[in-house]
């Protein structure tokens, strides 16, 4: 055991710091500050992807043979920590850390050769078509169908996906579809790559409770998808889907987000006055902040322990579920503290619906939209497998006879 960084690791950290200081555009870090980057436009995110790609750091999780940086756990942790401190945008995960690992493990050579470079170059924007109105936690009950045409050249897709994050920006969607209705639910699912410009696809925005158009409904009516776009084998999509979910979950601990959020809370509480002294000296508030900081310190080490084990070859299984539950509890608590810290100034709201209301809201502490963020991040314990589902997984795995 050694909790300090090696000389090599310190050199890496300095390299990351220099890179962020030189290459991270100020307008992007300004947008990320205090809001986790929810205000970033498609163009902003693509710009950041291109900068990272040029540096060779766009896909640190990919193996070298696919053009990745193949960082180890400590390197990833260092980057995450520095990126958070510098208010750097995060990469959009759907292609880089969800679809790519699936393609690399289960896709054909042709698929990898075609889709991976396009991801890196920013030619494609991917979104995730898993959930349906009737299939949330019970994902395997999904009903969107794909039936092969007579010529055997295309699948014809019909149905509806929902909660599709940033689907409004995407030109590609990876979908779970039902290709066999007559077998056990899990055994009739396939994994398809679908071009969003295909006739028969309609995207409708869903406005979330904080007013953001972050997710969408995607409707499919007789959408023709070339059979080459099937990943792996027909009816084996469930295996790939679950493999993807474990990758989705590892990043969900959000240590960097929490660290940045906690710094913001402390900054706010130092300038906000309560009862004639800074709020940070109010015993109740100070205790809450300390409590969550203590939890975060331990979770950060848990995160490192778990991902370094995974890097050594064992896939994070039940531990990923544990990280997801604890990580989201901590992040949501920090969002709650930020909202509280802002006091009455948490109430104003820049509404898209009301004309003129976006003109400079009063924000004496520079807190940003803390209350909107608090509500928006209730999603953290719902998506990527809800916290109840994660607890089921933990219980089932650890108490199996």
């Amino acid at each position, binding site marked *: 055991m050694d909790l300090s960084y090696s000389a090599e690791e310190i050199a890496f950290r300095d390299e990351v710091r220099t890179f962020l200081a030189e290459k991270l555009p100020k307008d992007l870090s300004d947008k990320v500050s205090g809001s986790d980057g929810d205000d970033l436009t498609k163009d902003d995110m693509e710009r950041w992807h291109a900068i990272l790609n040029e540096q060779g750091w766009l896909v640190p999780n990919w193996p070298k043979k696919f053009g990745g940086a193949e960082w180890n756990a400590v390197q990833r942790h260092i980057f995450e920590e520095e990126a958070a401190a510098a208010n750097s945008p995060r990469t959009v995960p759907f292609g880089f850390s969800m679809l790519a690992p699936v393609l690399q493990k289960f896709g054909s050579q042709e698929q990898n050769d075609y889709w991976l470079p396009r991801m890196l170059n920013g030619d494609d924007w991917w979104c995730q078509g898993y959930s349906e109105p009737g299939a949330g936690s019970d994902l395997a009950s999904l009903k969107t169908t794909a039936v092969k045409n007579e010529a055997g050249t295309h699948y014809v897709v019909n149905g509806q996906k*929902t909660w599709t994050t940033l689907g409004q920006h995407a030109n590609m969607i990876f979908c779970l579809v039902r290709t066999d209705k007559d077998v056990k639910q899990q055994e009739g699912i396939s994994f398809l790559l679908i071009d969003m410009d295909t006739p028969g696809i309609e995207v409708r925005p869903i406005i979330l*409770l904080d007013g953001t158009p972050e997710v969408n409904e995607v409707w499919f009516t007789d959408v023709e998808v070339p059979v080459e776009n099937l990943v792996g084998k027909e009816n084996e999509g469930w295996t790939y889907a679950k493999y993807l979910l474990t990758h989705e979950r590892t990043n969900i601990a959000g240590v960097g987000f929490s660290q940045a959020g906690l710094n913001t809370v402390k900054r706010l509480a130092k300038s906000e006055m309560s009862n004639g002294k800074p709020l940070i000296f109010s015993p*109740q508030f100070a205790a809450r902040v300390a409590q969550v900081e203590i939890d975060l310190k331990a979770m950060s080490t848990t995160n490192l322990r778990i991902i370094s084990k995974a890097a050594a070859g064992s896939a994070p299984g039940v531990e990923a579920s544990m990280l997801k539950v604890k990580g989201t509890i901590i992040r949501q608590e920090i969002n709650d503290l930020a909202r509280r810290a802002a*006091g009455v100034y*948490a109430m104003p*709201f820049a509404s898209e619906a009301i004309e003129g209301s976006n003109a400079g809201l009063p924000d004496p502490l520079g807190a940003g939209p803390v*209350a909107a963020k608090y509500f928006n991040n209730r999603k953290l314990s719902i998506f990527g497998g809800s916290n109840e589902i994660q607890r089921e997984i933990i219980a089932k795995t650890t108490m199996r006879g």
Partner: protein
Amino acid sequence: MNFDLTEERQMLQDTLRRFLRERYDTATRNKILASDTGMSSEIWEQLAELGVIGALFTEEQGGFGGKGFDISVVFEELGRAGVVEPFLDTAVLGGGLVADLGDESQVALVEEIIAGTCQMAFAHGEPTSRYDLNRVQTSAKVDGDDILLNGHKAVVVNAEAADHIVVSARESGAPGEDAGISLFLVPADTKGLTVQGYALLAGGRAAEVMLDDVRLPASARLGKAGAAFTAIEARVAAASVAQCAETLGAMDTATHLTKDYLLTRKQFGRPIGTFQALAHRMSDLLIEMEQARSAVINAAGHLEADRKTRESNISATKNLMGRAGRLVAEDSIQMHGGIAMTQEYELAHIAKRIVMGDHRFGDTDYHLERFIALSVA
């Protein structure tokens, strides 16, 4: 002891509940939320006609209620329906202060307020006062026969719509002292008064109110010079009862929506309410609902008590409602899953009303510390 409502209050509750159920559905409210004024004057007039505002004033003041339980009955119903119209600001705060302190000519306003033809706001908090009621920096200086007001008032709910704003200002002493604070009745069109409005996350509107050499006749003062603090504290106590009752009503809606959803939404082939992980949480919410209801009764029932009893009950209730409210809002969203994250869904608005209620008149932490201070005093 008797925990039943009087016949009059029961009638008011029934009428109000029926009216709001029929006239204030999600679609109507979402339209109001997206409107420029953030409120419906039609709903305002109709509710005034039903006696909602009159119920918030005593008989001597021209109303027919005005006690803690009148306030709690009205606001619980407003909260249940997620009403965003500023009854609290116009009637309980602005109107209440005029009724409590006004001279004969000033109290004439109360009649208009009860009739629904006058909007009010209370401009008290400042950018650095947070929830402290005595940290008034805005100054009132006597200038010949006049008084000059200068200062900045923060997040003044309903300031744009208000015909008159009750403004607090310091005539002597330092911020943090009770003595030296006065109240002034300021017509909205007074020179030197600027109102910079914006929408609020949970509906309705507020504004930063800037006072730049606002010149008033001495007759604009409400009550005695420098002696308004006691009245302010008592009025904020009434407003806290209103706020807590509103939160209670909203929590009741949230738990009902959640219970119904647990019984109808199916995953894994069965209603999700049959999963014990959710059933037990629902039970916890119902337990907390009973606690919340009792807390509101404690606050409302002691509103007419001596200062220490009243304030310690107010702080206890604000603290409990902040905690229970957060639990109910967060768990209701969680147990719904994605659907509760959508703006259109009733629970989204209701959850925002519940949580943002903790940002008015002192939050959970503030009132815990205040409760401790009052207990050892």
